[in-house]
């Protein structure tokens, strides 16, 4: 079952949560390159939000180069870029830092955090340095 989790109690806006959820599904391969995303109207009804909210999430993913938005056609997943970027996105670094700071201050030990990050990366099938080109 293809699902995303939303938290109405979170401070993160819903469009961002929808985008994050879909990004997770693309990263762990449940949504493969070429797959169509659910229609904006369909997803809006399923989530219980205005379709503009969903459209905003899709635009965010398109801006990141993960989704192909073409007028009149279903939004489709694009494969990862052929060339890996030289550095991790600055905004991602900031968010990762914030999350790690939160975890560190909660007193969880380093080994647990490293195992957790390892598990997540395993799930997301991160490209090994040997993989020169992506699937598309």
């Amino acid at each position, binding site marked *: 079952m293809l699902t995303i989790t939303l938290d109405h109690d979170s401070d993160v806006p819903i469009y961002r949560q929808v985008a994050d959820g879909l990004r997770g599904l693309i990263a762990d391969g449940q949504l493969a390159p070429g797959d169509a995303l659910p229609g904006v109207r369909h997803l809006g009804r399923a989530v*219980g939000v205005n379709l503009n909210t969903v459209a905003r999430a899709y635009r965010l993913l398109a801006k990141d180069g993960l989704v192909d938005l073409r007028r009149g056609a279903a939004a489709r997943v694009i494969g990862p870029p052929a060339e890996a970027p030289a550095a991790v996105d600055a905004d991602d670094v900031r968010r990762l830092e914030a999350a790690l700071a939160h975890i560190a201050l909660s007193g969880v030990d380093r080994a647990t955090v490293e195992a957790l990050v390892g598990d997540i990366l395993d799930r997301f099938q991160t490209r090994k340095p040997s993989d020169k080109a992506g699937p598309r």
Partner: protein
Amino acid sequence: MMFVTPILVAALCGALTHLIARVWRPDQLFFVQLGRELTPADRRRSRRAVAIGWLGSAGSVAVALASPGPAGAAASAALITVAVGWPLVELLLLLPTLDRPELPGRIRIDLGPRPGPTALMSMPLAALELGLLAVAVLLFVTLWPALPDQVPLHFAMDGTPDRYGSPVELVLFGGLVLFDIGLAWVIAYTVSSERAALPEESAERFAELQQARRYGLVRMTQTLLFGVNVGLLTMAVGIAASVVADPLLSTGLAVGVGLAVVAVGIIAPLVYWLPRMTALRSALDALGAAEIGTRREGWKLGGLFYYAPDDPALFVPKRVGIGQTLNMGRGAAWAVIVLLVGLPLAFVGLMSLLG
């Protein structure tokens, strides 16, 4: 008065049926609405409402029989209003005392494709229905030239006609059948496009149960409307055929058979589906997610109304009791209410004008 009498009779029948069902358990009138262990206070309120309901109904009938004039009718109407209205007022007073669980903040959304209306409905049954309609129309067109100017249209209890009219009125049955067919599709579409929100825990099981419930809901209404339609067509063609074939053949018989088909058509699907639907509902409730996916801030007046203009859903699961409620933040909800109130009124009005 022409309009008021049938409404009063309907209200009286409804109230009596409800009250008779409560003779054995007068303390459990609000059981469904409250959906909790009944407190002694709940039971007291319930007994009081049932007693007032009974006294009001009995008084209403007694007054109507004793003085048939307009004054008697008004007093009778006032008494039945109290009989029906009191339990409602009691329930409204009880609602704020309900402690409802907080809506879960975290939900899961199923992104997968959903079965559309054609997957939920029985297509062979829908085809059979259209086939029967076509056969009925063919028979009717064949019989049409032979029909007299006046055909019997209304019957006394013993089956003898007490009102005659133009055969054009029989065409009205076809209109009702078409309306029913459209209604079945509208219900199937509405149910199939329900929201896909799932609880975070046991989401798979919840989705399964939810889908079984959708299927049951659509199949139940489709079969029920099919039965009603077959009955209506039997009546229309039966009346026409009996008038043409043999004046001695009772047209009342055709109507009687049609009514019997309608009754079986309504009761049989309910007997089959209702226990299954109730079981599904309690299984879903056990997963603790009756109103999952609705907006917390959308529930007004202690969960009595749902008003969320942002939420695209027209129907949402109720916070109180079982079933669905309308999202009053959507314009379409008001159209549904106008239809629900207007259609029966229009029907009663039409019948009163014809009768």
